[in-house]
């Protein structure tokens, strides 16, 4: 979760902020009281983490994955089909789901990333649509739109949402930690170099294709894991997981939060999900709001909320 704070705050303050955030995340569901709020918090953490992992490719290397829901869906279906047919622990299943989704990301990356960025955008979108139809039609395997009953996570009382929250929080913190390690390492530097100028990056000895594929594969791997969690949490899986409206939601969170900061999208998810929850019965209006937000952010505030949040933090600390 370091990312952008790096430049403005010293190490001590940074660690304090991170600890405060983690403590907040830990005690929030206990304070919440009702099951519904816990469910919302689960959604917030889930979307926030997805926003951050989406950022890995969209914000750092500048490759927008328009079929992100497809990769979430691959993870979800792989994990639940494994759990149903081979009775393997869901926790292992989630990892396998992540690997499956990473493999497809790797394959797509190698086909399209040596070409113009537009090919990648279209191919990911097309892949997720093709898979959505495939999952809907493979009724013997996936039960299509009838919905696949997915076993809950094992090891505790599955009716308690609180446990799900802490498991998700654990997964999310690991993912965020690993992602921030990556973007703050030399690999992250290479990502940013590619984003700024591909040709300059390649003259400095960065293998552009490899690093682009790496960023996409990583981002897909995490999407697969989180997709697996979603399947086991919700319990019923339909091909609608792969619908592009999910991609749009994540994309909006990342763009509003600020690309290239990791923590920006994570924080924004809490604001956006709670705010738009009022509109949840009116899905149509919510999507219009998302569309407007996207246009406003790109035209007027291309850096998103992250710099403003940073200023706010700085004001309170000093």
């Amino acid at each position, binding site marked *: 979760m370091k990312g952008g704070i790096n430049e403005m705050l010293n190490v001590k303050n940074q660690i304090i902020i991170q600890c405060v955030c983690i403590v907040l995340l830990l005690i929030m569901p206990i304070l919440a009281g009702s099951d519904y709020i816990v469910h919302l918090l689960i959604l917030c953490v889930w979307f926030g983490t997805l926003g951050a992992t989406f950022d890995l490719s969209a914000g750092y290397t500048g490759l927008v994955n328009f079929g992100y829901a497809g990769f979430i869906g691959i993870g979800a279906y792989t994990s639940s089909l494994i759990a149903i047919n081979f009775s393997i622990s869901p926790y292992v299943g989630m990892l396998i789901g992540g690997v499956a989704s990473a493999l497809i990301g790797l394959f797509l990356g190698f086909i399209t990333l040596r070409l113009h960025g537009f090919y990648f955008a279209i191919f990911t979108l097309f892949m997720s649509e093709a898979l959505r139809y495939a999952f809907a039609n493979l009724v013997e395997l996936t039960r299509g739109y009838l919905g696949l009953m997915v076993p809950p996570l094992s090891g505790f009382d599955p009716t308690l949402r609180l446990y799900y929250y802490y498991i998700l929080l654990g997964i999310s913190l690991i993912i965020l930690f690993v992602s921030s390690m990556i973007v703050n390492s030399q690999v992250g530097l290479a990502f940013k170099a590619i984003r700024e100028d591909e040709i300059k990056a390649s003259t400095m000895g960065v293998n552009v294709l490899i690093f682009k594929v790496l960023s996409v594969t990583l981002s897909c791997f995490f999407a697969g894991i989180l997709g697996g969690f979603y399947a086991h949490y919700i319990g019923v899986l339909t091909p609608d997981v792969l619908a592009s409206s999910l991609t*749009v939601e994540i994309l909006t969170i990342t763009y509003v939060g600020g690309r290239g900061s990791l923590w920006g999208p994570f924080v924004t998810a809490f604001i956006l999900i709670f705010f738009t929850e009022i509109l949840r019965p009116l899905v149509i209006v919510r999507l219009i709001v998302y569309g*407007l937000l996207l*246009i406003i952010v*790109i035209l007027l505030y*291309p850096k998103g909320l992250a710099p403003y949040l940073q200023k706010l933090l700085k004001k309170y600390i000093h």
Partner: protein
Amino acid sequence: MDVETIVSLVFYGLLLGGIYALLSVGLSLIYGILEIVNFAQGEFFMIGAFICYFMITLFNTHPILAIMVSALVTFMAGALMEKLVIFPLRKRGGRGWLMNVLVVTLGISLILQNSALITCGAYHRGISYLWSTKTLDLLGIRCSVDRFIILLIAIATILVFYIFLHFTYTGKAIRATAQNKDAAMSVGININIMYTLACALSTMLAGIAGAIMLPISTVYPTVGSSYILFCFIVIILGGLGRLDGTLLASFIVGIIQSFSMYYFGMGWSYFFLFIFIGIILLIRPSGILGERRY
């Protein structure tokens, strides 16, 4: 598999191809000139179809007038979109502006689609015929006159568009801007107007496609997204920014789709096209005819 089935499948494929051609020629034009891709193209298809539908059912106008009005409205809407959204982004420029435009047009598409859902509701609306109810007997296959006329209009529109691009001053100016914008500016072409015009023309073609497609497919708020994906595939297959390649590719995609739809069902046609395009991209990354600017 008898001959009659094959011929009628080929005919339906050509028909689909004609519609894809109308939609993708516009996409390919703005890619060629602006290097951007418009995700909202399908929504202009939807707008065109809705306008034509309401003109015919509410005011009982002649189909040609309805199509003209659709074309005019989508032309204005496209010009408005370029001026309000794409122009400021282009002026700011900088890295990743293509991706920014993609996301912005995605936003526009969301707004248009869902506004249509609110105002018109999630119903399928359609009319049974635009021109006549008769059927035609062509070489043993039967097809309705309507479908035949649709194909003819699609081909004629593309022909007119081609002539406009190659034989009029404005058309030549658009092509010049696509080839080299600095050189175009130095000979006195106002490239900002050319950009707006190209964008407006491309959405107009989408609007015409929507209007003439009305008797075959019903119109509903998300109708655009079922066509637009194939159009992206078409412009990739045809080589980005290339008119002849785009035309060839739209008929190929149309025919593949009509055959796979007949033999495997609607859902699988996505899958087969996806695999087909994947293979093509592996062998020939720049499309079947290669890349070239107008």
